[in-house]
């Protein structure tokens, strides 16, 4: 009997090249980092069960799930608003998998595993807003899109979830993007093209930070 290995392969694995990209005569204005392993569960309230879901979420995560376009974080989980009566649960190390959450929300919500359906990319750097403006029609000005703001939106005609995490230690804003896995490689090219003039530093991490 053959030995099977089940290597998990990120949708960006083929195309992501660690290191510098684009203009070299300037300090890199953009950092692009892919996060490779995460659990991502879509949670949608059953009809009229919004309040029940909110309670269950509070019990499960120790914080209220966002009911407005925001992300909320605890040490091991980020809840990202993704639409009316729905949010995404982003976590690592198997703490909030579909099986576990299905138990927790069995009465109040419908869940779908999206852990493999998305690629997770974070964009930061002095030129992050300038680059994202080429892709996103949202106003990402600090006053309009503060830390933990979230949006279900489109870039390059493709649906994404975009939210701002904590700033980098150097004070630069960090924008996180969940993009559809099948579009990831194509969007990656588009992002590199948009970022090239600013100089890009490309990397990835195995786990959520």
């Amino acid at each position, binding site marked *: 009997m053959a030995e099977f290995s089940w290597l*998990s392969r990120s949708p960006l694995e083929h195309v992501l090249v660690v290191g510098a990209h684009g203009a070299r005569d300037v300090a890199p204005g953009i950092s692009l980092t892919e996060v490779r392993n995460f659990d991502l569960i879509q949670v949608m309230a059953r009809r009229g069960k919004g309040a029940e879901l909110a309670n269950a979420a509070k019990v499960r995560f120790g914080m209220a799930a966002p009911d407005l376009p925001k992300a909320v974080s605890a040490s091991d989980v980020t809840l990202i608003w993704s639409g009316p009566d729905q949010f995404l649960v982003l976590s690592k190390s198997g703490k909030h998998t579909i099986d576990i959450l299905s138990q927790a929300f069995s009465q109040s919500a*419908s869940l779908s595993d*999206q852990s493999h*359906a998305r690629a997770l990319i974070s964009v930061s750097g002095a030129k992050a807003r300038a680059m994202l403006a080429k892709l996103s029609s949202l106003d990402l000005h600090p006053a309009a899109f503060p830390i933990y703001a979230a949006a279900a939106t489109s870039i390059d005609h493709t649906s994404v979830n975009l939210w701002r995490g904590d700033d980098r230690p150097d004070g630069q804003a960090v924008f996180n993007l969940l993009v559809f896995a099948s579009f990831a490689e194509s969007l990656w090219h588009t992002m590199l*093209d948009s970022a090239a003039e600013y100089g890009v530093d490309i990397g990835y991490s195995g786990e959520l930070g």
Partner: protein
Amino acid sequence: MITSQPHRLTSGGLIDRSLLLNFRFDGKTFAGFQGDTLASALIANGVKLVGRSFKYHRPRGILTAGSEEPNALVELRTGARREPNTKATTAELYDGLEAASQNRWPSLRHDLMAVNQLFSPMFVAGFYYKTFMWPAKFWEAVYEPAIRRAAGLGRAAGVADPDHYDKTWAHCDVLIAGSGPAGLAAALAAGRSGARVILCEDDFALGGRLLADGGTIDGVPAAEWISRTLAELASLPDVRIMTRTTLFGVYDGGTYGAIERVNDHLPSPPEHQVRQRLWRIVAKRSIVAAGAIERPIVFAGNDTPGVMMASAMRSYIARYAATPAKRIALFTNNDDGWRTVEAALDAGLQIAAVVDARPDVSAAHRALAAKTGFAILNGFVSGVDGGKDGVRKISISLAGGARAEVEADGLAVSGGWNPAVGLTSSHRGRPKWQDDISAFVPDGAPPDMVAAGAANGAFGLGACLRQGFAAGAAAAQSAGHSGSAGTPPVADDEAFSLTPLWHVAGKGKAFVDYQHDVTAADIELAQREGFESVEHLKRYTTLGMATDQGKTSNVAGLAIMAAISGKSIPETGTTIYRPPYVPVAIGAFAGHHRDENFHATRLTPSHHWAVEQGAVFVDTGLWKRAQWYPRAGEKDWLETVIREVKAVRSGVGFCDVSTLGKIDVHGPDAGTFLDRVYINTFSNLAVGKARYGLMLREDGMVYDDGTTSRLAEDHYFLTTTTAKAGPVMQHLEFCRQVLFPQFDVQLTSVSDQWAQFSIAGPKTRDLLREIVDPAEDLSNEGFPFMGAREVSLRGGIRARLFRISFSGEMAFEISVPARYGDALVRNLMLAGKQFGVTPYGTEALGVMRIEKGHVAGPELNGTTTAADLGLGKMMSTKKDFVGRVMAGREALVAPDRQVVVGIKPTDRARRLRSGAHVVPKGEIPGPANDQGYVTSVCFSPMLDQWIGLALVERGRERIGEIVHAHDPLRGEDYDVELCNPVFYDPDGGRQRG
């Protein structure tokens, strides 16, 4: 190196004399300075003749100093970067610039096409509508090609644009167009108030008319005020000043279009940079401070090189230190024109005379004339002597009726100013007439837009500052910023008096639209022929339709029309103003989306594995799908596909079907909900089972099909076709949220979560047993046909298995979380080696579905009913579902509809082709007996012949009938037999086995 610039002043101007730039025009080398435009550099070099007109090929010189330029159009750059119709007046000079004149042959000075002038008595407005009609065939063969060659201006490169473009977004509270006194004052007020401000300036320098006209603001020279103001604006956190950026359009909801010429001032963009960038700016308020455009006066010979707008002439003198002429005459009807006299005198140039149409020239101007020693002639310029080399002499009709002549090598003309109403009128708002300046001023502007300064008809410097500042403060306030705007800048207001003058009647061609060669006589002719409406006038004479968009000609044209038809100018009205305000490169609107980036590309999880296998891919929507997997030695695709099909039907193969749309349908009412969207029933589907479903549009036609499985009591997993994945999701959400809000059901697209493969062939179970956990029962009893459930794979991965078959073979579809898709396909290859497992592509998939008579895209073409597809019996009569009622309309249930049927050629060696039509055997094909067409064909390896599906009138009643396939496009005619569409294993034993 060329250094001589004979028409350059030795001092002054906003040019950098330390940066000498060489450039070529029509092959000749010249020099200019940093800060020049191509036009100012040509002027500095004494070049007067720069172009030829559209129709008559008349010699033309530079008329203006801005984007309203009708004459000085050049082909800029060479090779793939050649840009036709580039306005020399806005093209920034750079070292090595190459430009060529256009629309002339063989050369600008000796243009043989100028022969057209001989025929000009016939080439009047609209002459072409009255001739070239005989013989009928001659239009395309003779006349039109000749007209097309003669028309047009510059030549496009004809090869792919090598430069890149991008598009971006910006957001602000207050958007300002123009950086003249009004624009800068607006930015100051809005910025100080705390608003987010974006100011766009077309020019590469900030200041607008201040750059040429100067003045005193807040007690300091304009230049100093500009730099102070810019320093203050730079200190404000949310003020962005964009030069080389033109606001060109206003769209709904406060969205504006602007074009930034990022690198047009360089020979080519630096690496990683774009040539131009399209901005989509979302602004709460906008202020148009785009200034005004000086208007010509229409008189005979007004197109002679050396005749120039007065403001342009002083721009060249004061801003660029370039002298268009040494001895200048001015023809004006207003005070502003006189400023050119002052600028010329300041530069040490001679004034030949001032022809002022007004009897009452101011005392100050009279004193200036007396002091300097030039004459003021009350009258009109009625003719110009000169030609290619410029103006020599000017004829004047004096007010008293006498005539005069003045020698001059340049004639400055000022007919007054037209506020730039293009942006404020871009929502079809019509500007209103303002008598004191005899000009149209903005009215009916789009919501949240105001005009200020000259763009609003305020021509004095003080007024521009006041209006701009007030507009900026008000805009910031209404956008929610209540900070203090501080003190407004102050300046005096110049006198501005004007006596309207549009047209000096007389002999000789008097041009209204220079570029399109529309004369005053053409307008008279149009009126005579009934083209009195300004829109008819425009269309009949082409007035205002040239690349300058009528910026210098429209108002004059309608004023002349008004005079002829005895109406006032406001009664005559304006044409509709259409965006863009300046012409914009098409490449900029496309941005990144060209070539392979035109649309995004979607890849399945096994894509890179398939690339390694040498697969040939086919575009299916945005997806790249493996079409077939050629092997060395195979002579063509058909051989490959036949191998793949045979391998499946005799052994086992697999195909990536991850592109199918996949939707989780959750909730207690999921089944009832599906009953509404499918024609068949799903609420009674057992958990662990799959069912084929068909959905209709509300008009009763088939919309999509796919299998849906019930994975839990409250969880269905629905699949759609690849093509309809997005639309079906939208449709289902519409059903959920709008049509049937009473149901407790939730929908989530999980298309990208699952890598899904169809594994098919008699050895499917053998292969699956290799990779599925041995504890899972895959026997016919343990996992019957149409079973669906989760299983464990060896190694601990969980997968879903669906016992469904598109190929007609014993088959399963297996799905694993997408990041394991690559591993799964490699493991299938590994595990399947002993069974000769064969990856197959969409082509083999298609062959097998045709062999099985399964309908797909070509049959689900949006005009077929369930019954047409042979699936009418699936339609439940016991429930409401989308499309049910309309599907019952008489024409949709008519007995003579075209329905799906199989076809086989009577000659087994014959190849079939889709798109052939079906007519009864023995009849001559015609509209009356056109009974259908072939939808899908393939070579069937199992039947060893071509087979197909067709939609044929009453097809199912005619099985066995020989009909005729008629394919005139490909010159083929042959007989085919109508047959059962299920060609292979009609009992379905194989898939159940």
